[in-house]
C-alpha cells in the first residue's frame, strides 16, 4: 500500500472521532471546525435509526434511545455500504449484547427485530411468483403461495401490544409478514401455534392440504372431520383474501 502509516493513522483518528465523539489529536486542523464532522456523521446514522425504529424510539424515550445509538456507532463496525441495511446491524448489535436485559426492557430485542423485518420484507429482492390458477379445491389441489413472506417467532407480543404491556406477556408468538403483490405494502398477521405449524408444513412440503390433515389433527388435538375442515377452510380463505395465497398451482 502506498499510503504511509502516519497518513493512515491520521485518517483513523478522524474516523474514531466521528464515531465516538472523543476528541483526538489530529494535526493540521482549522480550529473550531472538526466538530462539524462528528455532528454530520452522527446525524446521518441517528436519522437512519430514528426512521427505521420509530416504535422503539417512542417506547424508550429520546434519552435512552440516544444512548443505544451512541453505543452502537461507537462500538460496532458497520459493514454494509448501504445505509438502509444498517438497521439490521443495529438490531444484531443490541441482540448480541443483550442490551434489553441490561436496560431492563426485555422486549427490546423483539421490538427491534419486528421493526427491522418490516423493512426487510418491504425491500427484499423480488422472488419468482408461481403460475396460478384462480379456481381449485383447497384440500386436493396444491396451493400457490405469494413467495414474498417471512414467519418470525417472538418472546413478547410487540406486534399486538404497546411495549410496556407486551413486556409482561412473555410466551411464544408467531407473526406472518408478507409483501402484497400489487402495492408492495407489508402486512402482518398474528398466527397461533397450530396455524404456524400448518402454514410451515404446506409451504415446505408443497403438498395438498388433505395429505397433512392427519398430522394437523394429531398436533391440534382436533378430530379429523367437519370441524377441522371448517377451521382449515376459514384459515386458507383468510390467507387468500390477504393475498398470501394467490390461488392454485398448475399441475
Amino acid at each position, binding site marked *: *500500500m*502506498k*499510503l*504511509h502509516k502516519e*497518513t*493512515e493513522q*491520521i*485518517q*483513523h483518528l*478522524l*474516523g*474514531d472521532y*466521528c*464515531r465516538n465523539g472523543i476528541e483526538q489529536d*489530529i*494535526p*493540521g*486542523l*482549522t480550529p473550531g*471546525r*472538526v466538530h*462539524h*464532522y462528528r455532528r*454530520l*456523521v452522527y446525524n*446521518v*446514522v441517528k436519522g*437512519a435509526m430514528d426512521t427505521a425504529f420509530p416504535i422503539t424510539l417512542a417506547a424508550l424515550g429520546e434519552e435512552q434511545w440516544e444512548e443505544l445509538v451512541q453505543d452502537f456507532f461507537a462500538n*460496532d*463496525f*458497520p*459493514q*454494509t*455500504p*448501504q*445505509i*438502509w441495511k*444498517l438497521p439490521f446491524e443495529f438490531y444484531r448489535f443490541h441482540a448480541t449484547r443483550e442490551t434489553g436485559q441490561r436496560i431492563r426492557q426485555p422486549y427490546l430485542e423483539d421490538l427491534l427485530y419486528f421493526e427491522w423485518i418490516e423493512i426487510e420484507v*418491504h*425491500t*427484499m*429482492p*423480488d*422472488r419468482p411468483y408461481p403460475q396460478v390458477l384462480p379456481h381449485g379445491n383447497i384440500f386436493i389441489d396444491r396451493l400457490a403461495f405469494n413467495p*414474498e413472506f417471512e414467519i418470525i417467532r417472538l418472546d413478547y407480543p410487540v406486534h399486538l401490544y404497546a411495549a410496556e404491556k407486551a413486556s409482561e406477556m412473555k410466551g411464544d408468538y408467531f407473526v406472518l409478514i408478507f*409483501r402484497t403483490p400489487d*402495492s*408492495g*405494502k407489508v402486512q402482518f398477521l398474528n398466527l397461533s401455534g397450530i396455524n404456524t405449524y400448518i402454514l410451515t408444513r404446506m409451504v415446505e412440503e408443497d403438498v395438498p392440504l388433505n395429505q397433512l390433515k392427519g398430522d394437523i389433527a394429531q398436533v391440534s388435538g382436533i378430530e379429523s372431520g367437519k370441524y377441522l375442515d371448517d377451521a382449515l377452510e376459514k384459515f386458507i380463505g383468510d390467507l387468500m383474501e390477504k393475498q398470501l395465497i394467490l390461488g392454485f398451482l398448475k399441475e
Partner: protein
Amino acid sequence: MEGQVGIGFRRDISQEILESSVLTPDFLEFAPENWMGMGGYWNRIRKEAVEKYPVTCHGLSLSLGSPEELDWDFIRELKIFLDENQVSIFSEHLSYTKSRNAHLYDLLPIPFRQDAVDHVVDRIKQVQNFLERPLAIENVSYYTPVAAEMTEIEFVSEIVEKAECKLLLDVNNVYVNAFNHGYDAREFIGKMPLDKVEYIHMAGHEQVEPDLIIDTHGQPIIDPVYDLFEWTIQRMDPVPVLLERDFNFNELEELQSELTHLKSIVKKHWKAAPESSETKLLVANKNRRSHETA
C-alpha cells in the same frame, strides 16, 4: 446528455418525477447504494424511472481514500447495477467514508498528501479497470483540511491526471470551499483540468457560522453559485449538469425553477450542444432498445 440538466432521483420526489409534469428534468441521477439489491415497490419505481429517463449514477460508499482494501463484493454488485440500468456516467467522491473497517456514511476529507495521491490513484485505476468504464471523481466540500502537505488544487489535479479518470466538477463545492478556506473560486476553477470534466453538480448550501458554510443539498442554489457556474461553463465544453437536492422538497415549483434557471444558462453558453430534452430522450430510449435486442 451534454448540455442537459437533470435531477437527483430521491424517493421523496419519485412520484412527482414519474407522474406529474411539475418537474421536467432531462435525466435522472441515482445513488446506486440506495437502490441496489432492492425489490418490491422501490424496484418497480426504479425500473419505471429507467424506462422513462436517461440515467447517471453517483456513488456514496466506494471510499476511494480509505486505508482499507476496496470492497470487491460491493464493487461486483455495483457493476451489475450500472450495466442493468445502462448508466452513462458513474461518479464518486474524492473522500473516504470508511475507517478501521467501519462505514461512516458521510464524506471525510483525505489528507492532501503525496502518499494519499498515489494511494487514491491506484484505487481509481483498479475500480475503472473492473467496472470497464471511466470514473468521474468529485471535488468534495470540506470544513477543515487535515494534515495537508499540498494544496487542494494540486491534490485533485494530480489524481485526475495520474489516474486518467474524469472529473465531476461540483461548482457549489468550489464556492463552499473558497468561502470556508479563504481562496478565490474563479482562480481555483481556472486551474482545474476543465478538459477532464465529464459532469457538473450544482446545489444549495447553508451558512452555519459567519465563516463556515455546510454543503447540505437542502436549500435553493444562491445567485453567486449560479454566477460561478455561468463563468465556469464558458471555459469548457458542454457536459451534463445535475441539480442536487436531498431534502426540503416542499416546493416542487421552486425545484423546477432551479432546473429552468440552469437550463437557461446552459442554453445561453452551450448553444451548439443541447438537443431538446424530448429529442434526447427519444435517442436514449432508441439506444436502449437497440442494446436490448443486440
